[in-house]
């Protein structure tokens, strides 16, 4: 059963079209991450689902019910904001209880639910503090707790981890995953960070310029991107793209020749993940090393080739800036896209 369904959603602010027609279905219990560069419309989409914005065109269904005209409080949806949006004039306890008080739940119920959420998020000791007196991670947990106590059918997250430092972010990612397993509710999560997308999601939706580019499990998107945008957006360093032309059994580009695969003909874009390339003595691609990102024994070298910039993995210690080196692919690793990058023609 689909829990969230968007049909032909459009939204513009003045002359600026932000969402240009999005169709999307989210299954119950799913953790769907919406990812894309800033300005791609993902946050606006989230806000339309929440009821904080109204769509110009299209429909929003929650649990099968059309909710376009419903105010947020009648949608049974919870949201964690990027800035946490904790009420500064209330204690943690009051923050957590606010939504329940508005619903006029019995006092005892409220207390029980607050206590439960506080235990789950390890906030027990902080209940009587004001948000001012909390650390970033603690605030983040309060913001989540505020949604948890209400037990909505749908959790919305708007870049909730972007204000935390790296270590905390890793920890919170783990907690979010655990929470999702524990509660089993549908979660919609907006981020511009592909690592969060890859680690958290059951499915990922990639957006660009107001349109949904691809929707699927993270590894499918990584392995079988439908266009160059998705291909480059997921994976780090991002996929190398080289322009080439099919010439019989070869792809020929500026200064390189590769064995052709698949059916593509004419001009194409070749996609090569840096992980699938090795710096070697011999190889079809050559270039000057501009920079080296050493992670230890291995790392990535960033080259300037005749066909453009190229990133490739290396092992050992032999790569120096300024050197001219060769690069070879490790087996059948070639992604082939149409010349304009809009279609994938072949995946390894």
């Amino acid at each position, binding site marked *: 059963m689909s829990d969230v369904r968007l049909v032909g959603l459009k939204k513009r602010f003045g002359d600026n079209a932000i969402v240009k027609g999005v169709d999307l279905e989210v299954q119950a219990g799913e953790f769907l991450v919406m990812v894309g560069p800033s300005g791609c419309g993902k946050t606006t989409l989230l806000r339309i689902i*929440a009821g*904080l914005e109204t769509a110009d065109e299209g429909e929003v269904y929650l649990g099968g019910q059309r909710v376009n005209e419903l*105010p*947020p409080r009648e949608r049974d949806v919870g*949201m964690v*904001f990027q800035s946490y949006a904790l009420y500064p004039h209330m204690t943690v306890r009051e923050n957590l209880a*606010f939504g329940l008080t*508005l619903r006029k739940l019995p006092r005892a119920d409220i207390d029980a639910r607050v206590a439960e959420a506080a235990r789950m998020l390890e906030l027990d000791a902080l209940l009587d503090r004001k948000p001012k007196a909390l650390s970033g991670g603690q605030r983040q947990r309060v913001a989540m707790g505020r949604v948890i106590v*209400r037990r909505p059918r749908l959790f919305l997250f708007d870049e909730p981890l972007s204000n935390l430092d790296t270590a905390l972010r890793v920890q919170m990612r783990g907690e979010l995953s655990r929470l999702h397993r524990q509660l089993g509710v549908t979660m919609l999560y907006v981020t511009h960070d592909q690592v969060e997308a890859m680690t958290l999601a059951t499915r990922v939706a990639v957006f660009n310029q107001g349109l949904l580019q691809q929707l699927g499990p993270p590894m499918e998107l990584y392995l079988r991107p439908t266009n160059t945008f998705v291909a480059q957006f997921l994976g780090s360093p991002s996929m190398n793209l080289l322009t080439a032309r099919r010439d019989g059994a070869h792809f020929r580009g500026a200064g390189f020749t590769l064995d052709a695969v698949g059916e593509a003909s004419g001009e194409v874009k070749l996609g090569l993940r840096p992980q699938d390339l090795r710096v070697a003595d011999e190889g079809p691609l050559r270039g000057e090393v501009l920079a080296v990102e050493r992670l230890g024994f291995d790392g990535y070298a960033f080259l300037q080739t005749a066909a453009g910039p190229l990133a490739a993995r290396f092992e050992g210690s032999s790569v120096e800036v300024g050197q001219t080196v060769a690069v070879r692919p490790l087996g059948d690793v070639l992604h082939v896209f149409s010349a304009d990058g809009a279609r994938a023609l072949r995946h390894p």
Partner: protein
Amino acid sequence: MTRLRLFALNALLTLLCVATLYPVLWVVKLALSPTQTLSLSANPLPEAVTLDHFRAVLGSSDAQGRWLFGRQLLSSLVVSGATTLVGMSLAVTAAYALSRFRFPGKDSGLQLLLVTQMFPATLMLVPLYSLLQTLGLLDSLGGLVLVYATSSLPFCVWMLKGYFDTLPRELEEAALMDGASRWQVFVKIVLPLARPALAVTALFSFMQAWNEFILAATLLNDAARFTLPVALQRYVGEYKTEWGHFAAGALLISAPVMALFFALQRYLIGGLTAGAVKG
């Protein structure tokens, strides 16, 4: 900062405070001196102290034996309090709508608010008088309250709108998501957060009503319902000024406003400027 510089700073500030307070001390002296006249002396401390002027001002009663000062104090309090209440409740909702909602006529409305402030208030007296008569509100405290409340509205709305503009919208959205209605968001989130601005705006509208006398003197016809500034006007004639009574009355009138000022002064600094600085 060296000890010497700190001392110099303290000395300078003390001097400035004395200079600032000198005129006030001078009024205190007038109020406590036994005469009704000014006297040529630079010394701001009274040579002889008497409470006669205070007694005379406080104890005045009219032909029917009504205690005038008490009634006038009451009517000043009622008028100023009601003005603040009415004005603020009109202003907060309007300011919030102007800050948050999109609706036609919003920008021109805001401009219009400012524009009305540029027309000299005293010259509105003539049309206002006829208008109040049409509404049957001449010689009534209610009419006075309505006029004060509306005339302070533009300023209050602008002040509050400026402050609301600086409040993060996400807080309100979070409350909406928590299940609050627009009105609940306003009452439970926005108003508590806007407390400094509310305090300052309320103080201003109270002060404006407390101090106004031209309109009150024109509209009110019963000594027992005069506001205090109108009562004070009696002591300052074109041909004769009873300085002692005037000074005592002036102190009595200023005292509540000063008390309010001191009580609210911690809000003054934030409430006045937050809008400009953050926005």
